[in-house]
């Protein structure tokens, strides 16, 4: 079974939601749609599900155009970011609903419902109704209902976004296990969070403003973003982007930061570039022999979960530095920060990747 998307586009009242999408999905594959809010993730999932009609292009399932096949005759499941379950039915009946529609015998239904509930840890809740359980449990129910059908296509639209941080991490781990066993269907998972994409792995489709920016194995795309735009979407906090120039024997970053032309940077032709470095690749402590120190003024220290993001300034250039753990920093004072030039990305003036760090640095 294969699902091919050709030149797909969706325009609503003159507004382009999606344009020129070309994708190929394979049975047993796990695909992550990564992009910020309004990047077209939901639009694409709805087109794949058959809930909306595309304005352009085709969706081919095993070579046959799917457009025109009503939703209820397709073998598609979808989990929404809102927790959607049948409020009047118990959790058991919720999970059994699609199976009964398929005409399975009561004993088959029972076996499948209990199996799915077991897998998602909601066996204790089968007699309850969706209104009486927590958000995480509601989303587990929705996922159980989606999985139990054995659909060709399983679509998940930011399923964890409405859950709190802790629960999100926990469910993300479980999802990874559930989907890694899945061989019979195509799973498409949309998220705004780079970390989620990296944890789930598979293939990634990076979307921005309705366009497909880059497609490929998730970790490879993370390591070698094809363009500055991909690097921006695929990093949270955003990658530090600093204008600079390459001379024959050194780099000069905005704010007068002079760096040696190390490793992958050695091959860059002289000229103007934009340099990118991840917040996590910067530090307030010397990390290695290649680290270059520069003075920064701390403007804001933002604590997020178990990390601290330091927003700082070095001679008119803003930097974001990510430190593990929760710390406080003296605001307004000059402190040294460290940067390893081997972690620098270089983008040409047209936004294309010119040099990327070698893997494993």
């Amino acid at each position, binding site marked *: 079974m294969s699902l091919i998307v050709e030149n797909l586009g969706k325009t609503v009242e003159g507004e382009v939601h999606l344009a020129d999408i070309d994708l190929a999905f394979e049975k047993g594959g796990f695909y992550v749609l990564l992009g910020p809010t309004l990047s077209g993730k939901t639009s694409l999932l709805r087109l794949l599900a058959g809930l909306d009609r595309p304005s352009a292009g085709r969706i081919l399932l095993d070579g046959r155009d799917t457009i025109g096949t*009503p*939703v209820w005759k*397709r073998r598609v499941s*979808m989990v929404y970011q*809102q927790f959607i379950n049948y*409020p009047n039915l118990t959790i058991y009946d919720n999970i059994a*609903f*699609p199976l009964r529609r398929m005409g399975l015998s009561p004993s088959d239904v029972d076996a499948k419902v209990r199996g799915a509930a077991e897998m998602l840890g909601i066996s204790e809740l089968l007699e309850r109704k969706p209104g009486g359980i927590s958000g995480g449990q509601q989303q587990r129910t929705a996922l159980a209902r989606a999985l139990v059908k054995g659909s060709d296509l399983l679509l998940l639209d930011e399923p964890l976004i409405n859950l709190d941080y802790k629960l999100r991490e926990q469910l993300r781990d479980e999802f990874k296990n559930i989907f890694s066993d899945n061989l019979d269907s195509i799973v498409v998972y949309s998220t705004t969070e780079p970390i989620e994409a990296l944890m789930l792995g598979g293939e990634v489709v990076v979307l921005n403003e309705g366009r497909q920016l880059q497609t490929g194995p998730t970790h490879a795309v993370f390591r070698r973003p094809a363009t500055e735009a991909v690097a921006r979407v695929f990093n949270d906090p955003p990658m530090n982007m600093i204008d600079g120039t390459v001379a024959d024997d050194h780099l000069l970053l905005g704010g007068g930061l002079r760096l040696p032309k190390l490793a992958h940077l050695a091959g860059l032709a002289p000229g103007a570039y934009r340099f990118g470095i991840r917040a996590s690749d910067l530090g307030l402590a010397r990390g290695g022999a290649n680290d270059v120190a520069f003075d920064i003024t701390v403007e804001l220290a933002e604590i997020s979960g178990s990390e601290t993001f330091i927003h700082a300034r070095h001679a008119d250039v803003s930097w974001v530095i990510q430190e593990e753990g929760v710390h406080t920093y003296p605001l307004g004072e000059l402190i040294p920060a460290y940067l390893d030039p081997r972690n620098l990305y270089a983008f040409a003036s047209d936004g294309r990747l010119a040099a990327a760090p070698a893997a494993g640095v």
Partner: protein
Amino acid sequence: MAALYRFLKYAAILAWSAFVIAPFLWALTTSFKTSSGVVSGATYIPWLQYKPSLEGWGVLFRRAGKGIDIVDPYLSSLTVTVSASAISLVLGTLAAYGLSRFSFRMGPVKNADITFFFISQRIMPPIVLAIPFFLMLQALGLLDTRLGLILVYVALLLPIAVWVMVDFFNNIPVELDETAMLDGCGPIETFWRVILPNCKPGLVVAGLFCIIFGWNDFFFAFILTFTKTQLLPVAVVALNSSVTPWWSLSASALISVAPLVVLAFIVEKYLSQGNLAGAIK
């Protein structure tokens, strides 16, 4: 502070309840009095202060000629109100689902305009509709019939049902419909199996509004009927206090509000089951 607040709260509730209940109490005691009981001043405790009698109630159920017949108008009112409300609820719910979920377009007219058209039927004063309705029923030969009244009430109640139900459906996420379709339900099954069972509070509210309006309407019942068919509000008003004794008037007033009171108690249980509506967010 909390105690004072509670005291004031219950005092206010008590005062309001007394204000609401007093007329009913007065009517209730009066309906069991005879002429001597009524004229001997304000008395409320039966057997002690006055001698109770069933005379006032008995008169109401005697056939015409020997008393005041309130049985026929009562049955007419029940038939007309229940039929018109049921028809309005069924048609209104279907129309509202369509207006909430599908896009209609006729030139510049869109869903919102159609919804407004329904509601706009209730904007003009009823008197404006009286003459057209009269002429239409006359042309159809339905003046002074229950069927004619049912048709008129459907026209008047349908906007209420559509209005309440459109709002209710709009608050149910479309994703619920979509999930049902993804789970193998066609559009009609989606409505019947998934959406409708989750609409009970909306149906109860819409039904209640229809029944209250239909049951209490005097204006159209008065204009569109003459002698053959009579609805309860008209019959009660027709009881002239110079001919009909006060005790019978009281009894007729009580039995004409009784169905609504009973209904309110039944429905109250449903409406307080907030979990039905609350589960959909």
